[in-house]
Every structure is written in structure tokens, then in C-alpha cells.
């Protein structure tokens, strides 16, 4: 176990290093214009531009520039090119919103995914299963920003059942307002995953139900309910739980950018989207790295959980 942790930690650091270098290179090797010129504005003199170039270390070599940026990231002094705000402060404001969106949606899609998948498997082949299958497939075929926009328009703007986007802090509007503003974003983000999870669980259950050990369990004379919960469902859920961890990581790491933008939640994803629109490299670097950290950490957590749930898996 200790060896596993050490190996994983080393691997994680190396992967994150590679991610940071790659992201840095995307903006410094692909020609995208001179950031100093952009920052100086239209009516600037060459001297002013030169000044900015010095100040922001744009005149140094690429490795030096990279080191300078990483130093700023780790000291929390990273500053946006476009509005000179501190990137970490911006992220710190957006992160709770992204988490609120991601955690709520993850709970919603896991719960509904399991319920619908189980129901579908139990009713396999019947009309209700077919209807759910079609709905699930439609769910995984819809772009989240499109669904979100339509929900916002019809349920928010036209019917006025829900607020038209925006995020309300619990400290400002209380838990009721907070929930009220998040219901649509949660639903929009969860739809795709509900479709995916219910399909996977359904097929896992239908595979497992024909497994020999389920027959053994039935031959023991235990109740059908116990056969289903202790043997079929428990074994079918193992892959779902691991998938859940990975998907949650991806949602936090930028997967929610579309939902955040459509509902104007001002989370980290939206911060990223707005920064990239201005070619503002520091926030893009920081959010990408943070996202990679989430993915890598959750991958490791998932591996450990997997090994706990399934004794055949060994951590290596």
C-alpha cells in the first residue's frame, strides 16, 4: 500500500508537470499574436509595449518564462493579463459554485441512473424498459448547452417557474434560493449522465443476472430480494461507482464549462471560457492545472475504492 501511494504520487507529479508544460506550449508555440501588444492597448507607444514586455518577462527565453509562470502559480501571485486581477482569488470565488453544480448533479445522476437502470433491467424487454431506453438514448444525444438554453427559455423565461440563470450564495439568499437557482443547471448537466449510467447499469445487471454465482445464490434458498441486492446489484454497481468518481472529476475539471456558461453561474469553467476568449493565458493555465489535479487525484481514489470493492483487483 505504501509503495502504491509513493508510486502514484510520483506519477501524479510527473503527469501534472507534463500537463503544465503542454498547456504552456499551446500558447507559446502556436502563434497567437504578442500578448504585450494586446495588453498595451491600441494607442500605445513601442516604449510602452517594451515596458510591459519586461515587466511580464515576455522578453525571456521560453523555459524562463515557464519557470516564472509556475513560480507565480505556486506562490499564489498569478495575475491575469487582461484585467490584472489575481487568478487564485477569481478561482476561489468560482470553485464553490462549480462544486455546488458538480456535487448536486453527480448525486442526481447517480440516484436516478441507478433507479432507472435497475427498473429497466427488472422490466427488460417490456414497454417501460423500451421507453426508458429511448429516453436514455435521447438524453445522451443532446448537447448540454442546448438543453440548458431551452430549459432556461421555457421553464425560466416563459413559464417563470425557475429563475433565468444566475447563482445565489447561501449566505445571501438562504438555502431555498440557492436550491431554486441550481435545480435547472443540475438537471441539465445530469441528463447526459443519467442516460449513460442507467444504460450501463441495465446491461451490467442483465449480464450479472446470468452469471453462475447468481444461480448458486438462488439455489441457496435465500429470498429473491436478497439475491438481487446482495449478489446482482452489488456486483453490477462496482463499475458504476468507479465511473462515478472519474466523471465527477471531469465535471469539476472543466466538464461543467458549458452548463456554467449557459446558466451564468460564474464558476471556474465559465472563468476559463471567458479568459480563453481574451487569450488570457494565466487563468487558462491555472484552471487547466487545477482540473488535471482533480482528475489525477480522483483517478487514484477510484483505483483504491475499486480495489476495496473488488478483492480481485490489486493495487500495483
Amino acid at each position, binding site marked *: 500500500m505504501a509503495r502504491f501511494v509513493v508510486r502514484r504520487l510520483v506519477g501524479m507529479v510527473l503527469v501534472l508537470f507534463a500537463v503544465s508544460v503542454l498547456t504552456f506550449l499551446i500558447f507559446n508555440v502556436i502563434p497567437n499574436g504578442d500578448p504585450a501588444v494586446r495588453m498595451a492597448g491600441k494607442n500605445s507607444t513601442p516604449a510602452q509595449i517594451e515596458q510591459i514586455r519586461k515587466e511580464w518577462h515576455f522578453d525571456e527565453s521560453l523555459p524562463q518564462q515557464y519557470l516564472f509562470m509556475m513560480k507565480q502559480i505556486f506562490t499564489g501571485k498569478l495575475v491575469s493579463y487582461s484585467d490584472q486581477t489575481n487568478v487564485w482569488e477569481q478561482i476561489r470565488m468560482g470553485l464553490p459554485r462549480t462544486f455546488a453544480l458538480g456535487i448536486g448533479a453527480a448525486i442526481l445522476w447517480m440516484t436516478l441512473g441507478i433507479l432507472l437502470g435497475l427498473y429497466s433491467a427488472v422490466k427488460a424487454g417490456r414497454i417501460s424498459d423500451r421507453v426508458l431506453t429511448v429516453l436514455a438514448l435521447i438524453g445522451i444525444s443532446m448537447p448540454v448547452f442546448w438543453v440548458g438554453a431551452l430549459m432556461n427559455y421555457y421553464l425560466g423565461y416563459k413559464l417563470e417557474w425557475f429563475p433565468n440563470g444566475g447563482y445565489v450564495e447561501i449566505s445571501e439568499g438562504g438555502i431555498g434560493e440557492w436550491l431554486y437557482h441550481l435545480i435547472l443547471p443540475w438537471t441539465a448537466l445530469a441528463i447526459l449522465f443519467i442516460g449513460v449510467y442507467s444504460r450501463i447499469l441495465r446491461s451490467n445487471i442483465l449480464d450479472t443476472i446470468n*452469471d*453462475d*454465482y447468481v*444461480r*448458486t*445464490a*438462488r*439455489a*441457496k*434458498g*435465500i*429470498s*429473491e430480494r436478497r439475491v438481487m441486492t*446482495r*449478489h446482482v446489484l*452489488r*456486483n453490477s454497481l*462496482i463499475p458504476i461507482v468507479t465511473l462515478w468518481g472519474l466523471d465527477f472529476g471531469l465535471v469539476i475539471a472543466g466538464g461543467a464549462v458549458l452548463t456554467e456558461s449557459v446558466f451564468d453561474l460564474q464558476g471556474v469553467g465559465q472563468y476559463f471560457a471567458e479568459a480563453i476568449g481574451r487569450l488570457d493565458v494565466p487563468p487558462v493555465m491555472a484552471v487547466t492545472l487545477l482540473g488535471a489535479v482533480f482528475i489525477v487525484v480522483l483517478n487514484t481514489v477510484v483505483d483504491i475504492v475499486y480495489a476495496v*470493492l*473488488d*478483492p*480481485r483487483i490489486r493495487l500495483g
Partner: protein
Amino acid sequence: MSEPILEIDHLQVEFRTDEGVVHAVDDVSLTLAAGEVLAIVGESGSGKTVTAMSLLGLNRSPNATFRGSARYRGTQLLTASEDELRAIRGAEMAMIFQDPMTSLNPVQRIGDQIAEQILAHEKLTKAEVRDRVVELMDRVGIPRAAERARAYPHEFSGGMRQRVMIALALSCSPSVLIADEPTTALDVTIQAQILERLKELKDETGTAIILVTHDLGVVADIADRIAVMYGGRIVEEGTVDEIFYDPQHPYTWGLLGSITRVDRDRGERLPSIAGLPPSLLAPPEGCHFRARCPHEFERCGQGPPLEDRGAGHPDRCWLTVEQKRARRVVDDGEIGLAAKVAVEASPEGLVDRRETPPGAPSRVAGDAGAAEDARVAEEDR
């Protein structure tokens, strides 16, 4: 022989599939007395496993139809409710399955899997259950049982897993034990050990056993009676001696020619019956074995009933006892089925040598010598 505890009467099982209706079991009648060992022998697809599973209702599905009757001590198993069946499963009738590698839940501890069955039928404290589990595992020959009960299936070898399955089956002292190909998935040496253990346990507990297998070799030492199944039907039924020394059905002759031998590698075993079993989707008219039988004649187009034709036990072949005794191939005192080619070459139908050499058995698996070898072999490891 005592009163039968299990009576199967004209059992018919059909499955509806996309391709059509599969007639898996066709008019099977069998009885089992307390403490008796009945072997059901046949190739895969002969309906033997379906028969066994039908007794416990393990193959019930909306696509399955069961007709006839199967009574266990007065309970009609075919129509019993799930609750009634549940009370019988594991407690009265227990089953050992073919593949020990897949028959245990991979993510549950061995001990818990056995305990689950005990707790389903008996009110015991945790400690009592734990003691029972360890005792059972000990009894089937699992070393360090107390420690191994906490292990997971993947930490066991195939033979050890089958011992676990036996321990599981015996955990509530059932009256009937159904063993479905209990040794097929195992190495030959392990097969002998498992059979030996089953036999000892039968003698200790007096449990009646239905042993389902494709291999006549494994039943010789343990069974009292043998029912040979082919294409969903019983084609011959008799005591071990009757089947081994006076087999009446040509299919039985073929099976006798393909007995597993402990002293040969698997690779050396030759399939001695040419051709494939009939499709159960559209079973042939008349005798199901007709297409593969070297002795087929016109009358075989009508199904021969299962009756005693003078040999002292029933079979499903139109040939007279005298014809049968003359036609079955006897080679070095052993019986086999002549290959079809050979018969065509000799129109009189009397064949005295085999064209295809099936592995002729000199002794069968499970005999004392083989088991001894195996035990020594294991101790060496």
C-alpha cells in the same frame, strides 16, 4: 429399496427462443430413493442439466414451459410457489454446479457465502454459524479452514473451490444433493479426489445424490443406478452393472467407448461417436439417435418407447436383445460403438473391430488406485 423421496413423472421442458421452441426435456420419468445415487449421463445438450435445474426451479423463466410432474416428499416442484421452493432449496435439495471458477460470488468471502445459506434456513447465532462453516470446510478437506473462510474465491484453486461448493451444498444436511458435472472443469487428478470425497460424504450423511455428467467413467464407482439421456430423452436406464456389462442402447455403447481414463491425457481421448447431437429446435422423427447410429433401420423412424425388451432394464432401441448383444462391439472385454464407416463396409452389420480407436478404458476414474495416485501427487506439492 426404500420409498422414493423424489419422483419425476413425464417431465417435459420447453424454451421459447428467437429461433423457435427448444424441446430440452422430452418425457423424462425418474425416481430417487433416500440415500441412493442416481447418475444421469449424456452429452451436452441431452437435457440432463435442464432436468436437474427444473427440480429446483432454477431455470424458470417466462420463456420456459414445464409439463408433467416432479414430486419431492409430496411437494409438486414444478408448480411450487417461489416461497415453497425457497424453503426446499439449499435445505432439502442442494446443488453443486459445473464450474467452480464462476459459481462463487467473486466479491464475497467464502465463509460468508456458506453462512448465507445456513442463515436462510436456520436460526443460529453468529458464532454458531461460524463454527458450522469452519467445520463444513474442514469436513470437505480444506486445510486451515478457519483462516480460509475469510478468503475470497480467487484465492482458491479450482479443486478447492469445488470443495467449497460441496461444503455449501451440505451445509444444511439436505436429503438430496444434485451434482451437475461436479468434476468436469477440474484436472483429472483433482476429479478423482472430489469424487472420492463425495462418496465418503454420501456414506457419512446418507444424502441421496443425483449425479449429472457426460462421463460414464466418473459414475462407475459411486452410482447405484444410471439413466442415459440423449436428445432430451432417457434412452436407457438400469443399475450400474446392467449399464456397464449389458448395455442395450447403441448410444450407451458409444458412451462406454469414450470413458475418461485417469491414466491418459485429455488430449489422447478421442470422440468415439461421430456427428453432433440432434437440434432440439426441430428434433428428428422417431429415435433421436438415428442420424448417428450405425445400426439404424426403417423402424427407427417411429419413436421406440422406453421399455424392457428382455434385458431386465428399459431402453429405447427397437433392436432385439439378441441383436444388440451380437452387434455391440466387444474388444478386450470392453464395449464400444462401431463407427458408421465400418458398418457400411460390412453390410451384414456385424462388426468385430473398430475403425476409429476410441480410448478403451482399462479402469475408470475414481478407482482406489487412481485416487491414491492423486492424493500422493497433491501431497508432493
